[in-house]
């Protein structure tokens, strides 16, 4: 298996995101008949034989990197990652509807609204893991901000005065609430997408199209399950 992984041909290589998206992704793959039991196990392997597909597991943020280079033919990752990695050209084929969450601007409860803050001080400091999304959001509106990139526990930044607010993904909003933060502005809603390498999309069109079609159908079933199922 390791020998053939670097060569073109063989089963399509699908980049599968580990982390929060993993379970929903594997459920979708189950629905289209891909073998996922091994991935669900506690193996330390990164590459799995899924039958018609080779499953390559990685962090969601790395998926565009692998797919752009053609090291994976197709991949699944969040729209947030695709916007953030917008300079990595890949085909964005299907909105899979899973992993739905919102990118928001949040500040501490009781603080003045961000616009009021900016009116008086001119500038805000924003902590985020998504510097490009944050910059685009404020730039489009002509608002001056200093974006501070942090790698984790974004909620900490406003608590201790590193930043006036944060731009981050929220699913339920619980973490924000527990850290005395509240949503002030919604920036974009993100769901997971099926992406494809630019060359694989052309050269292996039949296989890529077939996978896209089946995943689209499976995603639609998940969103509106048939009565009785």
């Amino acid at each position: 298996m390791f020998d053939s992984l670097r060569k073109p041909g063989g089963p399509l290589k699908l980049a599968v995101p580990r982390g929060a998206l993993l379970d929903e992704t594997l459920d979708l793959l189950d629905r289209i008949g891909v073998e996922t039991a091994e991935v669900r196990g506690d193996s330390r392997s990164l590459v799995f034989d899924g039958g018609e597909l080779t499953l390559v597991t990685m962090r969601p943020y790395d998926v565009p990197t692998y797919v752009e280079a053609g090291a994976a033919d197709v991949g699944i990752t969040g729209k947030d990652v695709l916007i953030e990695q917008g300079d990595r050209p890949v085909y964005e084929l299907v909105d899979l509807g899973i992993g739905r969450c919102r990118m928001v601007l949040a500040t501490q409860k009781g603080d003045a609204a961000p616009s009021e803050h900016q009116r008086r001080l001119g500038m805000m400091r924003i902590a985020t893991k998504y510097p490009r999304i944050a910059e685009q959001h404020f730039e489009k509106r002509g608002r001056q901000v200093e974006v501070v990139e942090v790698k984790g526990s974004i909620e900490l930044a406003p608590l201790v005065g590193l930043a006036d607010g944060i731009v981050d993904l929220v699913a339920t909003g619980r973490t924000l609430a527990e850290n005395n933060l509240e949503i002030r502005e919604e920036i974009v809603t993100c769901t997971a997408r099926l992406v494809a390498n630019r060359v694989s999309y052309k050269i292996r069109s039949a296989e890529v199209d077939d996978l896209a079609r089946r995943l689209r159908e499976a995603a639609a079933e998940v969103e509106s399950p048939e009565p009785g199922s």
Partner: protein
Amino acid sequence: MLPDEMLELRRIQSALLDVFGEYSYREVRTPTLEYADSLELGDRRSADAAYRFFDDRGELLALRTDMTIPIARLVAARLGEVEPPHRLSYLANAYRAVTPQRGELREFGQAGIELIGGAGPYATAEVIEVLSRALDAVGLKDAVIGLGNASLWPGLLADCGASAATAERSSDLLVGHDLVGVEAVLREAEELEDAHVDTLLEVIGMRGGEETIERAATFGGDRFGAALGRLGSMSSALGGRSIGHEVQLDLGMLRDIGYYSGTTIEVYDPSVGEIIGGGGRYDDLMGKFGVTLPAAGFTLYIERIHKAQIQQGVSGV
């Protein structure tokens, strides 16, 4: 660049020039520096050349982004009185913006041909035959030649009654490969009927052999039909040629270069994750430089061909 790499690149270059020569394409050269105005005249997007500067008299100069526009300018200025067609080839560096730390090259090598003064599918078929032979000469036997037509997508949008705003937004997203975004824009567009949106989305994904033309024959109206007919004639014209590579007709191909007017070409190789060459027909470009002539050509990216050879263990070509 060290001697080993230089040697291998030279082999690629000379193999390509040999093929071009066999088909009577003769090598030309143009300056690396162009007036920014003349690049802009050729294609508005080339005006965004990454490297621009002033000369001592305040003229705005730019490093060329490709060879097609400089050759068009050269032919208009120097060969205007000579009976066409002109069969010209080149080996040259071009310059584009890069994302830092990505191994992208600011300066990269191109080898290609331009057939200026040859019209219609027969002339384009000659260009594609030379391309196929060139790919053979550098040992890329699995390379695939993708063919589209620049009028297909705009024609279909117009036939379906899309507004100018919808056309522009969806085309930008299609050039950026964001098919989810294209679908969202089309579904939101109030002027488009659902059936038309379904057709537009289906056509984007249509790529394959000659049966693709038949499958799309019932779609759209006159404008799409005409463009589809031209792609069909193009494909038929290849029948009499020796094309040793798989040809993929691609109805959703939309290139990010503005001067293409008819057939568009992309070249793929399974061992490289990005296109290794491209080209097409540009019947309106020469006119901008004052000599109205139909034309077509292609270019191959030397460094990417080299990468493909190394991936596939091709050597001593």
